[in-house]
């Protein structure tokens, strides 16, 4: 084996430039594949973090009729007590009771359909980090004549308003009566999704509840978990505890994101696999050329008694070594590239990336890759190399020694 390895290794460097070209092709193919995969994964993971951790949380609890009719009359009975009880669960980081319903926001010259969220500022800060999303103004720090509202930058632009402006929110109370109330914009927040910014406004629960006529009103409990992977188990647990409520996890709420993430790993492997398939044909061509240039040599090896299995293994080994060199260097460079870009980010705003926020994506992408992915890629590279080597190796053992040794 050691001799086979030595011969294979030296054979690789017999035609240094040709081997280097194919090694570089493998490196570039891998880097291209890893870059595409990292951008895709980074984008999806960012969207997941944005959506789940800043917007919808891992689990939401509602009155069963609220989902179809998000109105104040479909409240969770003893909502505050349930939220308190959930917060005490060891697997739950925080449960935020909210008063949520649809309404209308109007400025002096524009109006827009919105979702009003009555929140407890402290609990909400722990749940969605809303306080950290503020880009202008203060986070529920004011106690002025008009109650405070925090709105998204997108909605502020639409309403042609800003921090300090007065807007009127219109909504139904618990009896279904229409109520209009003036609020002062205390702050603007920003998330990657412009649709979320345009649609969601935040006010204090106490204020909102006093308007709708039920100080204890809760229409939604947003639950953030300690371990994000436990969402299915916790959903079932909460549902079992409160059979009369509608309990949904983030995958129920955002199925498109869920399926995208669920099949991401497979689709990324396929993507890189297709790139490596292309590279494999280059590898096959290189090894085949190398074999056809050494017909006489293979003839001699077999004539003096080297078994075909060893000749076959030698060609396979040469190919595997080339792919291992390219694979290891390619993956190391890819790792460095992804780590660098993860820190620095890729800012797409200058090339029209702002439009991504329409779809809930951030304009600055931070590529990332699961370390296991590199391992899978290494296996993929070697597997492709071995498959690519089969034909040249088969060709090598098909030479008839008596004829091959006389080849010029």
């Amino acid at each position, binding site marked *: 084996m050691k001799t086979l390895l030595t011969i294979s290794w030296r054979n690789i460097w017999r035609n240094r430039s040709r081997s280097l070209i194919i090694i570089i092709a493998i490196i570039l193919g891998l880097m291209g594949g890893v870059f595409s995969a990292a951008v895709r994964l980074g984008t999806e993971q960012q969207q997941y973090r944005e959506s789940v951790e800043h917007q919808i949380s891992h689990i939401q609890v509602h009155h069963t009729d609220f989902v179809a009719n998000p109105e104040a009359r479909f409240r969770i009975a003893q909502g505050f007590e349930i939220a308190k009880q959930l917060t005490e669960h060891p697997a739950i980081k925080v449960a935020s009771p909210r008063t949520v319903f649809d309404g209308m926001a109007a400025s002096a010259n524009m109006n827009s359909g919105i979702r009003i969220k009555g929140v407890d500022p402290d609990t909400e800060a722990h749940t969605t980090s809303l306080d950290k999303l503020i880009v202008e103004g203060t986070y529920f720090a004011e106690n002025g004549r008009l109650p405070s509202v925090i709105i998204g930058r997108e909605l502020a632009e639409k309403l042609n308003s800003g921090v300090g402006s007065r807007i009127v929110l219109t909504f139904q109370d618990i009896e279904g009566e229409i109520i209009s109330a003036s609020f002062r914009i205390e702050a603007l927040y920003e998330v990657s999704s412009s649709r979320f910014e345009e649609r969601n406004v935040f006010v204090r629960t106490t204020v909102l509840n006093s308007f709708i006529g039920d100080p204890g009103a809760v229409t939604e409990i947003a639950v953030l978990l300690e371990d994000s992977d436990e969402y299915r188990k916790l959903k079932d647990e909460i549902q079992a505890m409160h059979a009369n409520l509608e309990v949904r996890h983030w995958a129920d709420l955002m199925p498109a994101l869920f399926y995208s993430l669920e099949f991401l790993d497979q689709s990324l492997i396929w993507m890189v696999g297709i790139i490596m398939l292309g590279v494999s044909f280059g590898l096959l061509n290189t090894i085949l050329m190398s074999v056809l240039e050494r017909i006489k040599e293979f003839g*001699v090896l077999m*004539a*003096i*008694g080297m*078994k075909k299995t*060893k000749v076959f293994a030698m060609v396979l080994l040469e190919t595997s070594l080339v792919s291992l060199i390219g694979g290891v260097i390619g993956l190391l460079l890819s790792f460095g590239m992804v780590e660098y870009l993860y820190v620095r980010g890729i800012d797409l705003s200058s090339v029209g990336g702002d439009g991504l926020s329409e779809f809930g994506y951030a304009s600055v992408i931070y590529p990332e890759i699961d370390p296991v992915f590199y391992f899978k890629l290494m296996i993929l590279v070697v597997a492709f190399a071995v498959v690519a080597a089969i034909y040249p190796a088969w060709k090598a053992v098909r030479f008839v020694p*008596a004829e091959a040794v*006389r080849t010029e």
Partner: protein
Amino acid sequence: MKTVIRTNNLSKVYKDAAAPVHALKNVSLEFIQGEFTAIVGPSGSGKTTFLNVIGGLDKPTEGSVVIDGVDIATLKESQLFDFRLRHIGFVFQSYNLIPVLTATENVSFIMLLQKQPKKEMERRAKEMLEQVGLSDKLDVRPGKLSGGQQQRVAVARALASKPDFVLADEPTANLDTESAFNLLDIMARLNKEENITLIFSTHDQRVIERASRVITLVDGAVAKDEAFDR
């Protein structure tokens, strides 16, 4: 004296061409241990085919080749590989060394395939390279050796594993006179010292003049079989 190779009514017909070519016709010969035999004849007379058949590189159409009591025509391919490895040494016209291995590694290669102990392998390879006058080229690769030196390494490789016999297909054809004489001196000496049977196919009068036996093939058949006291 021990018979190393015996051929019985050996025939080889190539059917690939438009008309069948009878490369060997009923060749029955015996080769004795330690013989230095030259197979001569014009081009197309069947010299190389004969060497290929007795070397197990080609199968006869009819007849048998018995080496050490074994009819090699009956062996399976994998058995034949093993048989060649253990019983036959080859020297080719154009040296055919493994270019990525040094002279020592080339000479050791067959012994390595035979799984001989490493130390014995190294000792024998060094000894053989000394015997062929290349003790100063142990770690040199073939590309840095002259044609004559490469052929001497090839001879050392063929003999190092102490095969029953060595087949050499026109070994001096690509060598200048001095290199050819040098090689022949070495082979003649090793033939005597190691008592190894050497069978050459050749056009080269210099080889013929050294041989103790000269077999002339014409149109695939034995035309003459002469012994000389040399």
